[in-house]
């Protein structure tokens, strides 16, 4: 067994997994609080990655400024989506499916809007961190380290904020029991707007962090959202800690499977696992 190769795949897999976790946690926030699945979450990610890449690679904007602009646009898109697409149908019969379809419409809209704005070609971006060091024959890309550090920090901050701040607790309360939340005086509409804004920030952050690692194109939303579905389903819908663990594991398993079993079916592992979990343990592997 070639241990360097193995370690290489572990590093590669876990760093992909960090992006999956970061992305999926946004889906979890929205599902947990509103009980809906936001299909356009993949396009929020795509928008983050595209805006950032376009600003940095083509307009030559400073990294941090580009990230801030991408985040701002992401938050606006998130809040507008909630206001214009989700809220009008909130509480109507078969609301969950209706929002699924409405956000599907939104995702088609955003993907094609991005094509109109940027064209269908992928954008590649390099950062000062885009270099590779090779300790002991393992290639370690700087961008993946950045992803780890910032991604980990964001997840940690998020967990702290959710469990410690009053607003975070209000979000949790709304997720646990919407009627009680209203009865103690929580303004649900405000909480939903905050939840949507927060989720889109998380999608955009993962998009920005992945932009230097994968190339970005307007059509990557569906592929990313499918990863998000896999993670949230396997973890159990609405489960935070579970989504982080499963996200990391999914990246790891894909990398190991790709290296040692069949590289062309690397992406298939997730779907297989998702189907099995849905059939045999539909509440997910982790309790809420």
């Amino acid at each position, binding site marked *: 067994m070639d241990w360097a190769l193995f370690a290489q795949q572990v590093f590669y897999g876990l760093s992909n997994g960090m992006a999956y976790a970061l992305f999926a946690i946004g889906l979890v926030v929205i599902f947990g609080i509103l009980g809906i699945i936001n299909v356009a979450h993949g396009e929020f990610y795509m928008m983050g990655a595209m805006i950032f890449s376009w600003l940095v690679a083509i307009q030559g904007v400073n990294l941090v400024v580009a990230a801030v602009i991408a985040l701002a646009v992401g938050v606006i898109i998130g809040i507008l989506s909630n206001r214009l697409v989700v809220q009008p149908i909130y509480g109507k019969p078969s609301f969950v499916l209706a929002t699924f379809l409405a956000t599907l419409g939104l995702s088609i809209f955003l993907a094609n809007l991005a094509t109109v704005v940027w064209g269908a070609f992928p954008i590649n971006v390099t950062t000062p961190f885009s270099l590779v060091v090779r300790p002991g024959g393992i290639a370690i890309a700087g961008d993946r380290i950045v992803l780890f550090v910032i991604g980990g920090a964001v997840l940690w901050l998020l967990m702290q904020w959710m469990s410690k701040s009053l607003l975070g*607790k*209000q979000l*949790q309360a709304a997720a*646990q029991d919407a*009627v*009680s*939340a209203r009865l*103690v*005086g929580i*303004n649900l509409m405000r909480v939903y707007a905050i939840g949507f804004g927060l989720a889109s920030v998380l999608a955009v952050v993962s998009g920005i962090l992945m932009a230097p690692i994968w190339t970005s194109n307007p059509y990557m939303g569906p592929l990313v959202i499918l990863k998000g579905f896999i993670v949230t389903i396997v973890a159990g819908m609405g489960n935070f800690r579970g989504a982080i663990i499963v996200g990391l594991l999914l990246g790891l398993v894909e990398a190991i499977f790709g290296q040692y079993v069949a590289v062309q079916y690397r992406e298939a592992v997730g779907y297989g696992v998702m189907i099995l979990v849905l059939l045999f343990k539909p509440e997910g592997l982790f309790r809420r």
Partner: protein
Amino acid sequence: MLKINNLNVHYGRVHALKDVSLEVKDGELVTLIGSNGAGKSTLLMTISGIKKPTSGVVEWEGIRIDKLPSHNIVSLGIVQVPEGRHLFPKMTVLENLELGACLSKDTGWNKQNIQRVCSYFEVLGQRMNQLAGTLSGGEQQMLAIGRALMANPKLLLLDEPSLGLAPLIMEDMAQVIRDLRKEEGIAILLVEQNAHLALELADRGFVLETGSIVVSGTADKLLNSKLVKKAYLGL
């Protein structure tokens, strides 16, 4: 202070409340009795602004509240303890209490308030860091009332607080309701299926049957009315 006039509420085609009118005056303890499905919870949810009426007026201290969102109604001092407790099960007792006060910014006040709740319910003081979902039924009911007290209610809406409680605990709960009313002057609208208990506590009462009020009057009058005796007291 609370005045309800000709209230009608529908769930789709189901006419859940039909021309209901009632009043709760300052510091009064009023009870609403009715069997399962009569529309009691619907009435409380409508007062709290969770359910919107199809017609009629809900007035509180002279202003109309039937079109206000629920959080505004809480901030006006009408707080409900819903049927079946409805705590935040995966949060601690302390967090549940904090959330009860989430409309007030004054943390000092809130600390005092927690003390006040613990003076009514000593057990809660010993269980502060336990998850609400793991409390016993009686403790959950205490926490539900405690959480409502954290919002400093002027009118407390209690939906079947005795539901599923052992007789001894029920007695404790009755005592707390008396105290709240006496010592704090909080007006209470008490919804009950247990007519004995309710009429023993209340000044006045209403009987709701399939969405309409059929009898009303002082507690004594209701205790002696034929209908109440037969249908609700099992005499």
